[in-house]
């Protein structure tokens, strides 16, 4: 299955979570904290919200989202100017 992470193509097996897909990439992180620190999935079960990513303009939790064909993922939640989800 083909997905796109921050504009770069990536191939993953069907059933891969977005969090698992991101872990295959360097640096393997998800969002950026208010002080600029890289964050990565922590709890893996939808509680900690550290793995927030932008998929087709909406914020999703990477650990709770399964990759679909052609999915475009961005790891700029909280850092995009003006509106974190847009």
């Amino acid at each position: 299955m083909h997905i796109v992470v921050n504009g770069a193509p990536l191939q993953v097996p069907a059933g891969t979570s977005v969090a698992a897909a991101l872990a295959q990439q360097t640096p393997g992180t998800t969002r950026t904290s208010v002080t600029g620190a890289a964050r990565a999935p922590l709890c893996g079960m939808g509680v900690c919200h550290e793995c927030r990513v932008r998929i087709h303009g909406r914020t999703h939790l990477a650990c709770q989202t399964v990759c679909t064909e052609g999915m475009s993922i961005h790891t700029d939640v909280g850092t995009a100017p003006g509106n974190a989800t847009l």
Partner: protein
Amino acid sequence: MQTTDVLVIGAGIVGAACAHALAQVGLSVRIIDARLGGATAAGMGHLVVMDDNPAELALSKSSLDLWHTWAPQIDAGCAFTACGTLWLAANEEELQAAHAKRATLQAQDVACEMLDAGALARAEPALRTGLAGALKVKGDSVVYAPRAAQWLVAQAAAHGTVVVEQAEATQIDGQTVTLRDGSQRSAGAIVLASGIHAPQLCPGLPLRPKKGHLVITDRYPGTVRHQLVELGYITSAHHSDGTSVAFNVQPRPTGQLLIGSSREFDTTDPTVNNTVMARMLQRALDYLPGLADLNAIRTWTGFRAATPDSLPLIGGHPEHPHLWLAVGHEGLGVTTAPATAQLLAAQISGGTPAINPAPYAPARFAGLSTP
């Protein structure tokens, strides 16, 4: 036994401010905190001038003046932001209430101004259309209260002799406090500032837990610029029974939105009540329809320590000569901690209080003076 001039129980915002004010008047201070968690960690950290009665206005105005003198020195982690408050009028009746509020505040030299419907829409474009206007209170601000409490303790230590001890006080007897491990600490005066936990050490205090819910969103910088509160908050906030919600949204310096507010009596269950949460969010959507598209990342609850007359207990305990109370601040503890601390420090050290202490005197409650 180790002895200090004053022993402060509780290092929330009120206890921390008391330690700070006591150190400033030259007294040695020991702070005992059990890390039980209280309103300081759960609340919004709104610094707001409230005017439901003259005593509340005097305490909150005096406190805001102190917060503003601290603001230039306070560290960035305290997230002090002078965003101001917009008291929103949904209709003509509330607009008249806003005008009355302006007159009351201006009589006490609180800077504020009316915004008509057009000016309000320009100030906060995310609000729904059709609102009648708003009263803007410029000096109102926000802080991150847990960090502000730590900053006050650090400032206190810079002023004088301050010892901070993590321990649970289990008994107060005269000038002696017994800790969970059985050891004792003594002091010339004991200040009880442990909020909703205070009745465990001083039975008979007229404090009731008043539960509140909060939601915080992901980061959406610029969505809202002022703290927004519906004028209906004033009536809903003081219902003594039943459950009420009111619209209150605060922009945090991170770009996050903090969404409140709710009030529930007669429960000490900290679980998020989804029925109350749904009502609260629906109320928020009535004012800010765009919230529906935003992501919430946390919800939590906390308990305000409410008194029967909604004023805090600040002053000497009428039956215990060495025990001083600084509790019962309900939802205004972060705002009113500075003036609370000054009032108490002046009384303990024999100084002159900046405002009249009588309305806050614990002796006003009959149960405290006639056990």
